[in-house]
């Protein structure tokens, strides 16, 4: 166990077939999950998931509903037992330890505040469970409330709070225990869009300040990109891709990742010597794809609209549909029904002929 074991996990993660984990920023893997398998009856919810989280890292488990992300979070929290696999935290084996004996706290989706306790007592709950001295409880609850600007509401009861306030209480109630790892189960799903955007930025700042490992579960790709250092994209109980938000967005490994994060043009193609033949023409790639026949992806905003024929990968087309969206414009261009996102241009209209530039560095070969 100990360091050797963790190093072993890291090595197996690096070499594992399912995913390639980039080196954790702080150099150590403080949370390790290896070969986590879980099924409910005949349904496999998690199939041999392995990943590591470094000290002070903010990781998001991103995926559609039913991908197993919440189950994985609950296994880390100790609220669910895996059928197989090991969870380690700071070098200690966590598997088999119940939730109340792990240095891990959770912010629940429904917040799960105690309805009969006021805000201060809710926040104090964990400390009181561990029989912390009264003076220290008071001090730390005060600090936690101050950190989240909740002091004026200390004497309120949960039913007197708005959704955003409840969420802060849930956050304070978890953080006051100074956990080594904080788990957040879709904490923003009950907030409206504007508040959500604010809370995301605030959450990120808070995590930077505390340096605590955060693992957040969400199905909102924008939220994942906003808050996290690293995104694990999940589907069907597997991790499809893991990487920094920019990496996952710019270099998706397969169709699912390309389409789940934002929108992507998927272009079927066949490799011809160093080039790829597609329905929009012969395209040059930075690196020829590994397959003979497959799919290329390019983001709508990476396609350039040009007035003249570009030097490489030029596609001549006709604007079939045009949607004005204020700060940008979405075009649908024949052939290939290419989606193009561009700054608003008054000269463009339906039926106009345009040159599009699909630059090689933005063309991503997908594995499926």
């Amino acid at each position, binding site marked *: 166990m100990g360091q050797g074991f963790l190093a072993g996990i890291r090595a197996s993660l690096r070499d594992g077939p399912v995913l390639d984990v980039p080196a954790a920023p702080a150099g150590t893997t403080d949370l390790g999950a290896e070969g986590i398998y879980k099924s409910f009856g005949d349904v496999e919810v998690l199939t041999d998931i392995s990943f590591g989280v470094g000290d002070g890292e903010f990781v998001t488990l991103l995926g559609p509903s039913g991908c197993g992300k919440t189950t994985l979070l609950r296994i880390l*929290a100790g609220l669910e037992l895996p059928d197989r696999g090991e969870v380690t935290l700071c070098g200690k084996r966590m598997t088999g330890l119940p939730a109340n004996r792990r240095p891990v706290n*959770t912010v629940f989706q429904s917040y799960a505040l105690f*309805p*009969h306790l006021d805000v201060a007592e809710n926040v104090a709950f964990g400390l009181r*469970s561990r029989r912390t001295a009264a003076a220290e409880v008071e001090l730390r609850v005060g600090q936690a409330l101050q950190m989240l600007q909740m002091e004026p509401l200390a004497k309120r*009861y949960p039913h007197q709070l708005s959704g955003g306030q409840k969420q802060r209480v849930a956050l304070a109630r*978890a953080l006051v225990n100074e956990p080594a790892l904080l788990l957040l189960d879709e904490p923003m799903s009950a907030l409206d869009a504007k508040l959500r955007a604010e809370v995301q930025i605030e959450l990120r700042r808070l995590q930077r300040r505390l340096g605590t490992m955060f693992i957040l579960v969400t199905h909102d790709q924008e939220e994942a990109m906003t808050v996290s250092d690293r995104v694990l994209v999940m589907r069907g109980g597997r991790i499809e891709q893991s990487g920094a938000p920019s990496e996952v967005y710019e270099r998706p490994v397969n169709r699912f990742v390309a389409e789940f994060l934002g929108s992507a043009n998927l272009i079927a193609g066949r490799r011809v010597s160093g080039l790829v033949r597609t329905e929009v023409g012969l395209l040059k790639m930075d690196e020829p794809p590994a397959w003979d026949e497959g799919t290329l992806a390019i983001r709508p905003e990476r396609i350039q609209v040009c007035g003249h024929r570009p030097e490489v990968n030029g596609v001549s087309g006709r604007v079939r549909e045009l949607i004005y969206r204020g700060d940008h414009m979405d075009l649908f261009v024949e052939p290939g029904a290419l989606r193009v996102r561009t700054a608003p241009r008054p000269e463009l209209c339906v039926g106009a002929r345009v040159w599009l530039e699909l630059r090689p560095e933005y063309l991503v070969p997908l594995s499926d």
Partner: protein
Amino acid sequence: MTRLLIWYGELATGRRLFCRGASFLLPALLWLTLFLMLPSIALVAVAFAQRGAYGEVVWQFTLKNFHRLLGYGLFGWSADYLLILLRSVWVALVTTVLGVVLSYPLAFFIASRRGRARYLWLALIILPFCTNLVIRTYAWQLFLSNQMPLARLAHWFGWLPEGWALYPGTVAVYLGMVSSFLPFAALPLYTSVERLDWSVVEAAQDLYASRWRVFVHAIVPQTIPGLTVALILTFIPAMGVFVVPDLLGGAKHMLIGNLIQQQFGASRDWPFGAAISMALMVLTLVGLFLLRRSGGNDRGGGDWP
């Protein structure tokens, strides 16, 4: 002048709505007036009247009945009636507490059954209602009699002399009372337990709570709506019960219900009976008031009746 208004999508006038509401309400209102309000007023009136030489009611105002209830009689002061009142409150409280304590595990057990098994268990709880309370109480007599295994077992342990029955006695009264009122506690608790938000329980576990803390802070507050109904539905009938202590308790276990029955029956002293009935009502209302107060309305435990 008729002002038009829209009442949940229907175009109406205030007058028409009032008439309709009144006509729907009238039958129940009449019923309550005839069979609840008027008898209650009569009861209060009789409580301040006197008993005639042959048991008839003499309409002459007096406070004698209440004096007598407080223990002032022909032969000086005695605590008998007050003891009966106190004992009634005590027995009702113990019955309620026992019923609720037994109902919690029962409610969790039923709520955790799947599909049809759950309905079967619920049906089993309701089943005793298909039999009359008197018959059920006689069944307890039979069950506790000296021929039956329970009494023999008690004798074998040395708790009971040879050939004695387990009734009349305190234990028999509580057995009968709790078994009669258990469904009234178990069913409302079950409805609360069924809707329990388990994530609160998980949150308590996540925050290092011991099992007792989980129960007190994560489970009880969520079941307060059901618990309140359970307490009320058990305490009120337990205060007024007379069949069970009559058949299983004997003379030493006279409760307020038996005392009232005695006044209206054998003693033919309606005014005194009415006065005790009023005392019972007041005691019950005080109990409900205390229950409401102890919950506290501002603590957000749930809907309070």
